[in-house]
C-alpha cells in the first residue's frame, strides 16, 4: 500500500518532468485551452461583477464624503446666514432707536440690560444707565416692539426696571378697536392680565392693547401687547390674558422715555406709581 503511494508520487514527478522536458524541447503546450477560455470568461465576469460591486461601494464612499463636505459647507452657510440675519435685526433695532432719539422729545436714554432680577417672584432687570443719563423713577422703558416696563429705581450708573409682567406693574390701557379702557397688570409669570373689563365689552383674541395715557405715567399709544386668552368667569369682570408686545425674556436693550412734558400731569399720578413700586 505504502509502495503504491510512493509509486504514485514517483509517477507524478516523472510525469511533470516529462511534460516540462517536452515543452523545453518542443515548445509550450496548452492542453487545457478550451477550459482556460471558459475559465477566463468566468473569471472576467466575476471580476466585472466584483468591480461593479466595489465601484458601487466606492461611489457610496465618495458620495458619503461629498455629503459630509457639503453638509459642513451648508452648516457654515447657515451659521453665516443666521449671523447676517441677527446683524440685520440688530441694525433695524438700532435704526428704530435712532429714529426715536432723533424725532421724539420724550427720549431720555438708551441702555443695555446688564442683569436680570434675582428675586424668585420679581420680573425686573438692571440697565447700565442711571441718573447721569437723566433717568428718573417712573420713566418708561420701551423697545421697538412696544412697552417693556418702567423705571422703579434710578441710581448713579444703573437703573432698575420693572417689567410689564411683574405682578406689581399696572398701566392704563385701551383695548381693541373700540378703545375700551382697562388696566393692564402683570401676572407675575410671562404674561399680563386685563383688569376691570366687564361682560358688556366685546373682547376678542388678538385684540391690540395700547397705553391710554390716562394714568398720567405712560404716554398714549405705546403698544403693550395683544389679547391671547379670554376666560368667561362668574363675577363682575372677565379674565383676559394679554401677551406682552415685548418678549421679556429676550430684552437686550431698552430706550427710556418720559411722558410728554407738554401734557399736564394727571392728578393722583404719584399715588398710583407708589403702589406699583416694590
Amino acid at each position, binding site marked *: 500500500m505504502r509502495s503504491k*503511494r510512493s509509486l*504514485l*508520487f514517483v509517477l*507524478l*514527478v516523472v*510525469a*511533470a*518532468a516529462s*511534460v*516540462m*522536458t517536452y*515543452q*523545453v524541447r518542443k515548445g*509550450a*503546450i*496548452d*492542453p*487545457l*485551452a478550451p*477550459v*482556460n477560455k471558459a*475559465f*477566463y470568461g*468566468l*473569471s472576467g465576469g*466575476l*471580476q466585472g461583477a*466584483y468591480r461593479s460591486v466595489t465601484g458601487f461601494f466606492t461611489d457610496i464612499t465618495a458620495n458619503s464624503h461629498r455629503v459630509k463636505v457639503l453638509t459642513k459647507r451648508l452648516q457654515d452657510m447657515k451659521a453665516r446666514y443666521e449671523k447676517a440675519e441677527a446683524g440685520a435685526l440688530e441694525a433695524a433695532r438700532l435704526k428704530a432707536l435712532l429714529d426715536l432719539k432723533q424725532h421724539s422729545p420724550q427720549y431720555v436714554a438708551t441702555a443695555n440690560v446688564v442683569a436680570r432680577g434675582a428675586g424668585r417672584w420679581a420680573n425686573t432687570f438692571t440697565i447700565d444707565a442711571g441718573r447721569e443719563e437723566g433717568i428718573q423713577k417712573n420713566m418708561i422703558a420701551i423697545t421697538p416692539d412696544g412697552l417693556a416696563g418702567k423705571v422703579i429705581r434710578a441710581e448713579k450708573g444703573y437703573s432698575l426696571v420693572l417689567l410689564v409682567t411683574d405682578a406689581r406693574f399696572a398701566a392704563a390701557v385701551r383695548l381693541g378697536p373700540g378703545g375700551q379702557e382697562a388696566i393692564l397688570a402683570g401676572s407675575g409669570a410671562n404674561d399680563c392680565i386685563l383688569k376691570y373689563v366687564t361682560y358688556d365689552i366685546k373682547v376678542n383674541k388678538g385684540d391690540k392693547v395700547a397705553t391710554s395715557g390716562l394714568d398720567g405715567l405712560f404716554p398714549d399709544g405705546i403698544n403693550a401687547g395683544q389679547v391671547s386668552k379670554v376666560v368667561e368667569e362668574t363675577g363682575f369682570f372677565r379674565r383676559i390674558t394679554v401677551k406682552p408686545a415685548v418678549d421679556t425674556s429676550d430684552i437686550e436693550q431698552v430706550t427710556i422715555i418720559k411722558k410728554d412734558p407738554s401734557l399736564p400731569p394727571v392728578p393722583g399720578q404719584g399715588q398710583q406709581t407708589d403702589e406699583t413700586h416694590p
Partner: protein
Amino acid sequence: MKRTLKFLLLCLLVLIADLNLKLFGLRSDFASLMAFWVGYSRSAYSGIALGASLGLVEDSLGAVLIGPGMLSRGAIGFFAHYLSKGFFRWTPLLGFLGAAGLTFLGGMTEYASLRVFSDFQGALLPGILKLIAQSLINGTLGAMLEPENIG
C-alpha cells in the same frame, strides 16, 4: 453528487481566488492549502490527484510552463497525508506548521522546476521572502482547518 458539486465549486473558487486575489500585496496560494487539506484529511491519492489537477490548471492559466505547479501541488497533497499518520495528532500548531511548511516546500519545488526546465531567471531571495509570506498566510489558515470540522 451534491457533495461532489460542492467540492468542484470550492475548487473553482480556489482557482478564481488564486487568479484574482491578493493578500497584503501577495498573490494567494489557496490551491496549495487545498491540496494540503485534502491530502491530510482524505488520502495520499486524493491529495496527489487534486493537487496535481489544480496545479495543472494553474500552470495552464499561467501560460508559462505546464508542470511545476502540477508537481508542487501534487507533492503537497502527497506529503500532507503523512502528517495525519503515525504519532501526529491534529492540533492547530500542526495545521500551521504543516500548511506553512508544505506551502514553502511546494514553492521551492516550483522554483527549482522552473529554474531547471525553463529560462526562468528569477532571483532566489525575493522569491523566498514572498514564499515565506505566502507560507505564513497559508499556515494561519491551515491552523483553522481542523479536518473533523471541515470534512
